[in-house]
Structure formats: structure tokens, C-alpha cells
């Protein structure tokens, strides 16, 4: 809870809350609905809806048939996983040009996202949306996840997923508030600057181990407040502000004459 409280004021907190709410809604819907809204079971009707959505929201940049333009890449063969990642994290549709598309409150609900994913998946074979089983961190091995994360992810996303800088204003986002499903999809599809970690490189089980490692971070630190888990720079800053601040405050009190 401590870790959660510390992040409550994060600028992405509203986004996360919204995401959570949507995920819960979506989850309830998925549980109650007769057939899950998944790409592999997509109906022709879904694809049709998806196509309409695509043409209204995405075609300006990605081309009327998702063939890509000078503005944006072709989406033929990117698969449902890529669409689900981009749209469910709010990165797509993009609102303004910047160094990279940033996560924001999602603009399409679970159903629309599924339809869009189904449409793009129908254009060419690509990675499918992972199953709930595949992204369930509680079934993974956090120790192995740690070893994999360290070698493959930590250089951009920081040792425990606090995020980090890339060149020219781009950045690797923090991962604590990212759902297991989105983490999995990101590895599978390599959104934007991120390279692809396909199943030959990091197997589905290993991907789940990485999610398990990230889940482990929700417990915070054994040593108390995490201070953002940013490493020595933030530690040094706090040493000066809290440590030297309190101690000099004490010295001023000691040196002041009693009235």
C-alpha cells in the first residue's frame, strides 16, 4: 500500500485509475458476455465495425487500408496484440506529434478496441492478444523474471521498472502501472522505440516471469520509502534535503541563544 500511496500523486495516476476502472468494467463484461472479445474468435461483424472505426480514427495517418503513409507505418501484419497495446493504453489514436506517442486516457472502449484489433488482424497474420493465463504474474517465477529483466529491459526501463531516458526527448515509460497484458504485448510487438522480443528470444513463460517480477515491485522496498527507486541521484538529493536539512536545523537551534 505504501508504494501505491507514494504514487498516488503521479501525473499518470488519473490515467491509471481510468484504465483500472475500464479494465474492471471490461473484465466484468468479458466474464458475463457469451463470447470473449478476442481476435481469434472475431466475427465478420467485428471486423466490419473495426474497419469503420479504423477509417474514422486511424486512416488519416495509416492510410485508408492501413498500408501506411509517410506519417505512420503500415499496420499490415502487426497483429491484434499491437493494436490492443496501442489503443488500450491510449497511445493511439495519437493526438499530437511529439518525440513519441505517450500513454493517455484511452479513447476507445474495450469493445471498440477488440473490433479494431480484429480488423487489423484480418489484414495480415501477426501476434495475437495474449490470454489471461499468459499474463498472470502469480503463475510466473519472479527470480527468473528478474534475471531476464536485468539483461533485456533494465537498461531502458530502470532496474525495477521506474522508467528512463532515451535520446532526443524519447523515454522508456515506468512499468509499475502497466497491466501484465500490456507488458506482454509490448515485448511481443515492440511499440515505437522499443525493440521486439519475440517468443524465440523471450519465451511466453519467460515473459510471464518478467510480469511476475514487475508484480513483485508493488510490495515497495524492504527498506522503507522507495524514493522513486531512481537510484543514487534521488538518494543524494534526499540526503541533502532531509539529512543535511534536519541536521543544520538542529545546529541552528543549538546555536540560538535561549530567551
Amino acid at each position: 500500500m505504501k508504494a501505491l500511496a507514494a504514487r498516488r500523486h503521479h501525473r499518470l495516476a488519473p490515467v491509471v485509475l481510468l484504465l483500472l476502472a475500464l479494465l474492471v468494467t471490461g473484465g466484468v463484461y468479458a466474464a458475463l458476455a457469451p463470447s470473449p472479445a478476442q481476435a481469434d474468435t472475431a466475427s465478420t461483424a467485428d471486423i466490419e465495425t473495426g474497419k469503420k472505426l479504423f477509417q474514422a480514427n486511424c486512416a488519416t495517418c495509416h492510410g485508408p487500408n492501413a498500408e501506411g503513409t509517410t506519417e505512420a507505418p503500415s499496420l499490415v501484419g502487426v497483429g491484434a496484440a499491437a493494436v490492443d497495446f496501442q489503443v488500450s493504453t491510449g497511445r493511439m489514436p495519437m493526438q499530437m506529434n511529439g518525440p513519441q506517442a505517450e500513454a493517455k486516457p484511452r479513447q476507445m472502449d474495450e469493445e471498440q478496441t477488440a473490433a479494431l484489433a480484429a480488423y487489423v488482424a484480418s489484414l495480415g497474420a501477426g501476434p495475437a492478444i495474449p490470454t489471461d493465463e499468459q499474463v498472470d504474474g502469480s503463475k510466473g517465477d519472479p527470480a527468473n523474471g528478474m534475471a531476464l529483466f536485468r539483461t533485456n529491459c533494465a537498461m531502458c526501463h530502470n532496474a525495477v521498472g521506474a522508467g528512463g531516458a532515451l535520446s532526443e526527448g524519447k523515454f522508456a515509460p515506468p512499468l509499475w502501472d502497466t497491466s501484465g497484458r500490456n507488458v506482454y504485448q509490448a515485448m511481443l510487438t515492440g511499440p515505437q522505440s522499443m525493440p521486439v522480443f519475440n517468443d524465440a528470444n523471450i519465451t511466453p513463460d519467460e515473459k510471464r516471469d518478467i510480469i511476475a517480477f514487475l508484480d513483485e515491485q508493488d510490495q515497495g522496498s524492504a527498506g522503507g520509502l522507495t524514493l522513486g527507486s531512481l537510484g543514487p541521484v534521488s538518494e543524494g538529493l534526499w540526503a541533502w534535503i532531509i539529512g543535511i536539512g534536519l541536521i543544520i536545523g538542529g545546529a541552528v537551534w543549538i546555536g540560538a541563544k535561549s530567551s
Partner: protein
Amino acid sequence: MSTTTTPPVAAEPSTPIGKTADYLDQRTKIGVLTKQLVRKVFPDHWSFMLGEIALFSFVVLLISGVFLAMFFDPSMALTTHHGPPAIMDGQLMSVAFSSTLDMSFEVRGGLLMRQIHHWSALIFVAGIVVHMMRVFFTGAFRKPRELNWLVGTLLLILSLAAGFSGYSLPDDVLSGNGLRITDGVIKSIPIIGSYLSYFVFGGEFPGEHIIPRLFTVHILLVPALILALIGVHLFLMVLNKHTQYPGGGRTDKNVVGYPAVPAFATKMGGNFFIIFGVLALMGGTMAINNVWNYGPYDPSPVSAGAQPDWYMLFLEGSLRLMPGQAEIVTWGDFTLSLNILIPAVVIPGLLFTFLFVYPFVEAKVTGDHREHHVLDRPRNVPTRTGLGVAFLTAFVILALAGSNDLIATHFALSINTITWVFRILFFVGPVFAFWVTKRICLGLQRKDRELVLHGHETGRIVRFANGEYIEVHRPLDEQERWLRVNYEARRPLEVEPATDARGVKRKGYKKDKRWQKLSRFFYEDRVEPVTPAELAAAHAHGEHDELEPAHEAPALVSGSGTAEREH
């Protein structure tokens, strides 16, 4: 204070303490020393306690360090870790890393001690820095304390060595990459670089010797040197007696303050407990260097935010700022890595050289051979204050450059832009800081003059019978005035002419001329203190400025502008 604390000769002691004291004194003559120390007068000011931050956090380092040494095993032998934390269970790692995990998760209070130790290390160096700032800006390094300044600067360097060697001991990925950078810097040293690298690592990086070696450096070599130098530092402090701030009755020939026992010593002891308390509080509530987040050292991984502890950040920043084009190949196909040597060797070399030589340079350009025990107000030595601020500016810019990736992510900036900005700021910033600080100092000095000459504004407006309005100024009391006039505005050195009376060229004239140039840089701009004559003249000129008692005024208008009769 002519009475002594020890009883007169031949009085038979009766209490246990008395008996012990008697026993000791018969063998060591300790009474003489104690007598001197017990009633030794120390001036009291909060800024004189900054050195205590360093001293006491060092004591805490020793206490917590002994605790850690009981459980730490500095071996690079490989082992498979079994036990908490979950993310490390079953991983291959060095015994050093595994024992760090064990002491954190299985020894009760172990993690607390580790965190106290690490926070103390950060505060130790910070304490040294703030103490040095106080000493520098008040001119406490002047004769006879130049030597103690050198000892202090050595202590600063040793504290960096202590911090760096300790930081690397857990053998984690973060510190391992730090060592790898160190190896890269060592290799860049011309001619002997490769051999020095072998010397340090006992072979190729990382080998299996570096952790045990650093352990010996960290727990024996450096602490022993630090302890010895702290001894020298305190001995010289007691020998020279403490400096004091300027004020009434304080001269270079006396020291005004409180006797060591009881009040001063009690405050000092209390300060130790307060500092220890702050460190315990930090260690107990704020996580620091959770090495299991980084994992055991492996040469392949690295994590974003790979930085050293704050006191090494300036080196990191300096390495980050240097453009790579500086690497050159000399005649004979030798590689000269100026892109590493300049930021990692030359820049810190210059910074520390500045610290080492400053007291001597200042003494030389001041032409000053007297002892100084009354401190300067920083404003009264504008050039020194400006240079100090310029130095700190350079240091801070480098440290910020060492954090440029975090600045980029937290302020949504491009890391490339930040790097370019800092590249320019590193040259412009200190100059600008010097200029601004010097101007501020001169401004404050002028304000002091103004205050001495015309007194405090009271806000009371007085109208004279002839219709003239003036504001009543209250003259400064003696103490206030003394604080503002009791300084010397130094003048640039005069040099003897190039030729003597017979027209023979004088040896050393050019050298003198160079020193004079530097001296001019220091003391050309100055504000002289007010003299009694000036004050008298100011009074004569604006005598009604100090119409003092209100009832002498013919008519009164209150300062707030509302007409209000006082009687």
C-alpha cells in the same frame, strides 16, 4: 577563572572518581591537559557545528560499519543464493552479494544498519562540503590555519575514497558498472594505463580480487588514514583555538565564547545524538541502495539511471559532457584518450588544485603575513566569495550533468539538448556566478555603508516649521556599527619599480608584476569601511536626519501616511 577544577595539592581523594583521577594523574600528569581543555573557550555559532556533522557521521559510520563487517563476506567466489528475497532465490552470485542479501533479510536490524551506514556516508561527505564552505567563505583558512585547510582537503579526498570503495563492495550490477567505468578511466592513462588496470584488478577486469582488495581499503586503509587525519585536524583546531565571528570585543588576540565544560561539551554531545538520530530515522524509513533491485554483478546488464553516489556525480557529469572527438591517435599510433583524461583526470585535478592552493594564493596577493582569528563576513571579501560561488557552480553543473537522464525524464526534455546546455553552462555559469556574486557583495557593502552613515529608516515622517518633510533615521547602536565598520578593504599589491635607483634592472620584476595583476583582480573593486570622520561629515550634512526624540519635532506625521498627532 583563576580557580582550577582540581583540588589543591595533597588533598587526599575520597570518591571513586577522585581516586581514579588521582591514580591516572600520578602516572600521566593528565591534570594539566584536562585543566586546559575543560575551561577552554569555544565561540558558539551554528555554523561552527557543520564540521561536527562530518565528525559525528563518521562515528556513526564506524559503529554501523563494525556491525556490517560481522556479517559481510568479501569474497568473489560464486555461489547459488538460497533464501530471501524471492527475486534472488536460486540465482548464481558472488558470496559478497549473497552475504549482503543475508544481512539485509535475515539478520534482524541488518538492513537498518546497512541503510544507516549508507545514509551516513552520504551525510559524511555532505558534512565535509558544508563545513568547507563555511571555512572558505569566512576566510577561516588564513594564517595560521592553512595547514588545517590542507588536512581538511585531504580528508575530503579520503572520504570520497571511503565512499567509493564501500559503494562497490556488495558486488551488484550498479556498482560493478561503476568499477567498469573506473577501469575504463584507468586504461585511458597514457603509457601505463593497461598495467595500472592489471594492478588494480589483479588481472583482467573484473577478475576475482577486486572486492577483497576494496574491502581492505574500505575497512582498514582509508578509515585508519581518516582517523589519523581527524586527530591532526582536531589537534590543530585546539592548538590554534577556534576562530570567531566579528563583533564587539572580538579581536585577533582573544577568543570570546563559552568554556568547554559544561555547556559547550553538553551541546556537542547532544548534537551527536541528534545527528545519530537523524541518520537512524533515515536508515529506518528511507530505502537506500537496495542491491537486490540491481542484482549480482554480471558484465552484460546495466540499468537506466546508472549513476554513482552524489559526491561522485561531478565526475560522472564531466564524463558525460566531454565530446568524443577529443580522442586522438598520436605519432607512433598511440591512443591518447583525451575524451576521458580531460573530464576524469584534468577537471577533478583542477578542482582539487584550486582547493589546495587557494589559501596560499590569497595570502600572496594580499601581501598578508598576520594571523587571523576573526572571521570575514563574506561580503567584505567579494572576490573570494565570488570565486567560491563560481567553484560551487561548476561543481553543481557537473553534478546536474551527471543526472541529465533523470532531468530529461522528469522535466520532459531531450537529453541531447540538456547535454548541450550543460556543455555551454560549464564555461559560462561559473563566470556569471562569479560576476553576480561579486556585485551582490559590493552592493551589500555599500548598503552597510549607507546604514552606518544614515542609520535605520524608522518610517516616521517629520514636518518642520518651514514646511520641509524628512524621514527620521535612527542611528546604529555601537555594536551594530562596529560589525559594519570593522574590516579592512584590501588594496592591490604595490610592486617595486623595474629598475633600482641606479637604473639597474631588478630581478623578479616580471614575476612581481604578474602577482600584482592577480592582486588587482582580487582587490581593484572595493568598498572602504566608514571612518569616524565620514560619519561626522554625514551627520553635519544631514543633521536633521537623526532628530531623535520625537517630542523635539515641531510637527509629526506618522509613517503610514495617516495624519496622527502624538501629543
